[in-house]
């Protein structure tokens, strides 16, 4: 198992009242999984993703990677976990505007002090996601779909065990959405665990497992019977 999510609960306070954004969620991410979590805005799916990425600490529960609870790690260790074990694709446009495409892709490779040359690897990934011709372009010249491909290539640069994608198709047209989902599916088929959250019901078609999240509660769905209103 790449990552194990065990009984995660996250409580927030709104005024004097507290509510559970994530309520006792357990989930295992295995190589080859393409897990899609569907839910409305505010259902807690992004919070769950951020907890798995170690960006937000849960009120209760643990996320295990290499049999260690990531919330007991030091900042340096948890940063390394984010850099090496997972590849995170944030919501919206997440490229750095002042770096060209290839530099954006190879950035995580060097964030942990790696001094080896990374341009070849970055170019390889750009070829894989179909935008090698744009390697020297800057993000402002790219379309939404192309930017998402850059983010996917960047998430793969350190060859992580899991890819975590926060609504990667939210601002894309139908055709580009299909292309991105196909790409993520191929990543999963390549042996990575892919976990994505989305509003898009069509994404379920590409998933190996799908869940619905409502009021912080995660429920697995049969493939043919996704209940989502």
């Amino acid at each position, binding site marked *: 198992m790449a990552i194990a999510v065990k009984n995660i609960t996250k409580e927030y306070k709104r005024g004097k009242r507290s509510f559970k954004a994530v309520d006792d969620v357990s989930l295992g991410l295995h190589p080859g999984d393409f897990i899609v979590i569907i839910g409305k805005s505010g259902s807690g799916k992004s*919070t769950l993703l*951020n907890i798995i*990425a170690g*960006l*937000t600490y849960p009120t209760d529960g643990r996320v295990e990677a290499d049999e260690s609870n990531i919330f007991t790690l030091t*900042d*340096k260790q948890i*940063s*390394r976990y*984010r*850099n*090496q074990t997972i590849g*995170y694709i*944030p*919501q*919206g446009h*997440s*490229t*750095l*505007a*002042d*770096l060209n495409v*290839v*530099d954006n892709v*190879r*950035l*995580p*490779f*060097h*964030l*942990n002090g*790696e*001094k*080896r*040359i*990374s*341009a070849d690897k970055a*170019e390889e990934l750009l070829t894989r996601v179909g935008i090698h011709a744009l*390697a*020297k372009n800057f993000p402002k010249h790219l379309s939404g779909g192309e930017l998402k491909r850059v983010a996917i290539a*960047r998430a793969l640069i*350190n060859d992580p065990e899991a890819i975590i994608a926060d609504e990667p198709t939210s601002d894309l047209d139908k055709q580009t959405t299909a292309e991105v989902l196909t790409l993520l599916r191929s990543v999963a088929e390549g042996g990575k665990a892919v976990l994505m959250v989305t509003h898009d019901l069509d994404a379920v078609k590409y998933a190996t497992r799908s869940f619905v999240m409502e009021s912080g509660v995660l429920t697995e769905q049969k493939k043919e019977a996704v209940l989502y209103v």
Partner: protein
Amino acid sequence: MSAKPMTITRLSLYNLRGKPFRSGSLMAVVLILAFALFGGSVLSASLKNGLSALEGRLGADIAAVPLGYENSYQGIILSGEPVKFYFDKSIEQKIKKVDGVEKVTSQFYLSTLSADCCSVPVQIIGIDPNTDFVTKPWIAEVYHNELKDGQMIIGSDILPKKDNTLTFFNQKFTIVAKLEKTATGMDNSVFVNVSTVKSLAESAKQRGLGTNAEVQEADLENSISSVLIKTKKGIDLDTVATNIRRSVDGVSLVKSKNLFESFSNNLDIINSFVGIFSLALWILAALVLTLLFSVTINNRKKEFSVLRILGATRRKLAGAVLTESLILSITGSVVGILLSAIVIFPFSTLIGEQLGLPFLLPGVDDTLGYLLIAFLLAVVAGPLSAIYSAVKISRTETYVTLREGE
């Protein structure tokens, strides 16, 4: 395709390059600071040097000049303004006998209204080699022998002919040495022995060359222009001056300390102003930079949250902010100091003239010292101002900043 590792420094450079206006604005603040710090310290030091040089050149505690000529004497010392005034030679001996006087020497002044050496009239100062204690110590720095008839030592601003001679009143003089720059009237004066200057004056008088009424009327052989007095140690200068006034008629006394006092007071005011101005500017620059960094970093929250998501440690995020501020500060400081040097060094003479004070640039060692201090003070202002933003951005919840940045 760039193959170099994407280090924090490289990332910072790309960020700075990508936002030229933002980077330029931040750099301009440091540039102005470095310009003012270096320029101010060099100006202040130059004035201090000028005054020290003046002090070193005077040598005498009191100068006795013909009654009413004290301002003209100050003109010779400070600006090299050519003057001619004479009184009887016997005054020297009278002053020598006054209680509290240790030693005396006389000087004879003659000015040229036109000369082939200079664009301005030159002050010729005749010294008495037998009694001279005023010019001897600093003339000895460049010339070790006694000045003979027909020989001349020139101030640093005097331009000799190619054959190392100068002609005054149709007489040719051999230049035996040139003095170091002092930023005083001495730079525009020439020094000869007293017999030379008197024969020169006599010759000019007979030929009617460029002389005025004072020269025409003077009994040159028995005249001198000033008596320079060294007082005995432990005796109050004012007491000696009073003694001279009681014993000798027809003289005005110029006390060296009074000559300095007004300049020294002015210099103290200028130095205080430069100090307070520098401190105020540094604080202002630090506050402006803090504000600019805070606004800038606030606008870049998403960028930093992306870096955090990609695996940057908190320390690395703070490092990125501080590295950017350091790069801006170093660049701003170097450019600021260079600009300051371009303004001050080539135009030091003009600045000195405009200030109306002795102005002598510091030596290379001192200049490098001021450069280093100005550089360090300006450079440190950037990262120091960015610390708050660096700590803030590294401590903020990434998830929150990502959402805020959208």
